[in-house]
């Protein structure tokens, strides 16, 4: 028996695949690194545990192997806690105990028979890299998307080369078996499930750097984090999406966007060429004259042009004196106007307006601390929003002149490492209660106050580590002793904290392109999304906004938060979507520049001009 509590933890896995990248320098789950199937990573084992607890799968040879290869090294606990606050190690331990007891009791371990299709798949990719074991299939059958049912594939296959993908497509077409391709994780939108073949590209991880052309050629298994790591070594950066998302998958699906999109653009701005295997199994490059025109856009949604087997991604030079900084605001309109102004004046590279929830969640290593920090930021200091900017030293001086109050990286480091003491002895209440024409943050964040802040917060890795479970304190202390962990620029380039937004619940995002000069429209969209969510008692919050194309457009994210294990939350989301869709359709039809990301899905490699200015 899997203990109920363990089953519940297992069911909480968010499927963000953060356990499949070495984002903390802890190393990867040893078995996952070798076996590549998601089943051999902590994410897969969480699903298997959940599946066993719910009686969805039998104990098979594959399952025994998956459980047996777990060394209980504890890497998953550190990685997962950093992002979600979950502690998967107890799940891993329970799985091992369950299987040990199962075998000791002499119960049947099922041997799954092969079949001709599986044999053909194995002929293409090698015996080890195709499977029909239910323990493996289960881990490719669902994600936290509340509106999609579980769908078990018949096969999972892990090709190594583009040529193998060509052959797989031919095989699937020839036998009339549907297939989907899957990047590092699920899409968390229910898009990568099939009852046919799942092609997992996790083994296709090569990165070739073409320095002369400032281009990185990446295979489809390469994640944003891995690519950023490689190019950073050479003094470059790329416009990176979520760290665990694959670069090719991201480009094809939604297009690459982030706070860097202010400078580096979206859609086709981010690559110079791509290689695809089309639906008939033919290989083509986008830059060929005869290639299909996937730079165009249709506002109805469109299937992807095939399986991306290579992306030639633009690299951008990093400048030595760049730093990240935050400009706090008490109002949304103030923050958005400021971000637009920066973009129009070409000041700064990455720019994003962050809401209080994002800000407090990103910087706090525990949900409980994030709650406290949010209340400190908003109620005591009056910081409802912050504009995040990456800027060189000249731009930073300008921004300081424009904004008055900024949180530079020195202050950010101090605040972050001293977060647990933020309201020590009612310190912030003292600031809040100061009757003044200025917002409390405008007083607190002055440079003269730095020594006082330092005394109040006693910032140090050990101070910050007070916020986590006792047994993780040492790990967090050493983790936060690393300068990059409190470096706004690094954190933004590698985005390792952004997955924390789903720490308290699974996040359901609404993203739309909006005309940045139309603050009224932006506020209207945010207000409508809030009103709809409130009507269905769905927890919700503004996410972020990033200017695009010199302040003409922006990308807006608004988030709904749900417990994906609770069916009733899925029902609520379904009803809410029934109102959100017509709202966006109406706005898209009547307001230039409004484009819901739903219709960009599958057209992420379009030129931005094709969807921003139609």
């Amino acid at each position: 028996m899997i203990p109920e509590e363990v089953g519940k933890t297992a069911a909480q896995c968010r499927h963000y695949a953060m356990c499949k990248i070495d984002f903390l320098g802890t190393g990867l789950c040893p078995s996952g690194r070798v076996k590549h199937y998601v089943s051999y990573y902590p994410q897969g084992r969480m699903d298997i545990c959940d599946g066993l607890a719910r009686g969805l799968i039998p104990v098979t040879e594959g399952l025994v192997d998956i459980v047996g290869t777990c060394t209980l090294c504890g890497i998953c606990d550190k990685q997962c806690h950093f992002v979600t606050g979950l502690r998967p190690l107890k799940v891993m331990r329970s799985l091992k105990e369950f299987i040990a007891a199962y075998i000791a009791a002499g119960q049947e371990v099922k041997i799954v028979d092969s079949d001709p299709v599986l044999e053909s798949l194995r002929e293409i990719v090698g015996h080890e890299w195709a499977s029909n074991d239910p323990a493996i299939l289960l881990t490719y059958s669902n994600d936290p998307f509340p509106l999609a049912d579980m769908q078990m594939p018949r096969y999972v296959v892990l090709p190594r080369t583009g040529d193998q993908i060509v052959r797989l497509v031919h095989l699937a077409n020839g036998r009339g078996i549907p297939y989907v391709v899957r990047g590092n994780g699920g899409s968390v939108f229910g898009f990568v499930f099939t009852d046919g073949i799942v092609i997992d590209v996790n083994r296709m991880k090569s990165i070739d750097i073409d320095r002369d052309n400032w281009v990185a050629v990446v295979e489809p298994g390469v994640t944003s984090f891995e690519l950023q790591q490689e190019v950073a070594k050479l003094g470059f950066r790329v416009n990176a999406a979520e760290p665990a998302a694959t670069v090719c998958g991201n480009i094809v699906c939604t297009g690459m966007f982030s706070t860097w999109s202010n400078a580096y653009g979206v859609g086709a701005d981010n690559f110079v060429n791509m290689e695809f295997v089309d639906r008939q199994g033919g290989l083509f490059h986008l830059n060929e004259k005869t290639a299909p025109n996937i730079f165009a856009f249709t506002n109805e949604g469109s299937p992807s042009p095939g399986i991306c087997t290579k992306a030639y991604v633009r690299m951008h030079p990093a400048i030595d004196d760049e730093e990240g900084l935050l400009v706090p605001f008490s109002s949304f309109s103030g923050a958005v106007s400021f971000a637009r102004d920066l973009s129009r004046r070409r000041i700064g590279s990455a720019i994003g307006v962050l809401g209080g929830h994002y800000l407090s969640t990103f910087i706090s290593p525990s949900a409980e601390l994030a709650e406290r920090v949010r209340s400190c930021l908003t109620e005591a200091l009056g910081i409802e929003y912050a504009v995040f900017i990456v800027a060189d030293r000249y731009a930073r001086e300008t921004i300081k002149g424009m904004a008055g109050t900024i949180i530079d990286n020195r202050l950010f480091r101090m605040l972050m490492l001293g977060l647990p003491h933020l309201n020590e002895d009612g310190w912030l209440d003292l600031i809040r209660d100061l009757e003044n024409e200025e917002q409390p943050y405008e007083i607190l964040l002055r440079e003269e106050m730095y020594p006082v802040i330092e005394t109040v917060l006693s910032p140090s890795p050990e101070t910050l580590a007070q916020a986590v479970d006792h047994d993780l304190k040492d790990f967090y202390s050493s983790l936060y002793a690393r300068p990059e962990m409190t470096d706004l620029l690094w954190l933004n380039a590698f985005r390792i904290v952004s997955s924390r937004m789903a720490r308290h619940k699974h996040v359901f995002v609404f993203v739309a392109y909006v005309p940045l000069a139309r603050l009224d429209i932006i506020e209207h969209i945010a207000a409508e999304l809030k009103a709809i969510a409130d009507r269905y008692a769905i927890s919700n919050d503004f996410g972020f906004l990033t200017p695009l194309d010199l302040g003409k457009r922006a990308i807006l994210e608004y988030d709904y938060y749900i417990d994906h294990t609770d069916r009733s939350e899925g029902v609520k989301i379904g009803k809410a979507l029934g109102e959100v869709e017509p709202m966006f359709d109406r706005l898209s039809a009547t307001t230039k520049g409004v484009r819901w990301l739903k219709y960009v899905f599958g057209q992420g490699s379009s030129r931005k001009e094709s969807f921003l200015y139609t």
Partner: protein
Amino acid sequence: MAGKKIVMRASPQAIEEKRRTRGSAILVTGGTGLIGSHLVAKLCRTGYRVIAIARPNKQMTGQERINRLLDWFGLDSPARSRIEILEGHLDDPDLGLDSTRYRQLAEDIDEIVHCASDTSFSERKRAQVEKANVANLENVLELASRSTCCFFHHISTAYAAGKNGGRPCKEDLVETGAFTNVYEETKHRAEWIATKRCASEGIRLNIYRPSIVHGDSKTGRTIRFNALYYPIRTILFFKNLYEKDIVTNSGRNAEKMGVYIDRDGIIHLPIRVKVAAFGGINLIPVDYFVEAFMAIMEDCLEGGIFHIVNTRTRPIEEIIDYVRRLFRVAGIRVVPCEDRANLPRNGLEVLFDHYIRVYEPYIRDTRIFENSRAEAILKKRNIACPEFDYDAFSKCMQYAVDVDWGTRL
């Protein structure tokens, strides 16, 4: 309405008689504030029937908030039996009550004591302050006009006359004025609004103008810790912070800030307080205000305006000296304003600068408040404003520390 003779709703004798028999029902607004809560308690203890209207906050219902305060006052059961608490708020014309309850209330009340007010000085809070001090007053006056109310008691401020061009402030309505802040301005407007509305409705009106109110002169007790309390609380915060740094961190941060503990164990905080050369703070204890209010209420049945102030202002140097003595803190000194531009400021001073910027008109106040009308009544009853001396200061601050500036209330 020119030329129309207004008949007052009740004669002084009728009012007096009703009060004497304790038949009056008095609606009190702002019953969770410093003055309002004290008046609720005092009126109940005196035997009046009180109706308090209170809004809920994040933690408690209005009922719970008032009851908690009555506990704090130690009100006994007979007194408590004379209070009725209504869950409502003054933001809406119907005061957040359903139509039946609103009608019942209108039929029930004889007098209104309007204490509800927003005491923020910040211009950035203008909308909020105007709403609380003007719009909400109009909602209460509307109730008064639609009710059986015959006497309106409006708690204003001695500073409603604004800067008053350096002239003595009279116990009268002021025609025009330049104001230090939005609080003064809205309280000024409120006085005119109340005066006109009450006159047109035949409701008698008393306007009470206290100066800066602090804790009880005998016990130091209070429920609010702003104004006078804020800078003291800040000093103590820094004192504790740097003492801890010196004890546990070898004083590294204290040294950077120029903070140290001398041989006598006195901590030196380098804080230069920049204020004008003349003037002082006009402070009155809350118990004095309550006594004065009750006396004026009972004595003045025709209506009038009354300054409830201290005839002796305190210079800030004296307060700093009290701080030094009570808390064993040195290093705080007053610097003339003229030097303001030339001084680089440390973090401790930045906070004080911001505080002073807002409160300076009240710290170095040179305004003179005539109070002959109030004085005539108070003198008859031997009610005099207690001195704000070291003893009173100590009691107030000791209480504040004991309740951790309100967090342990």
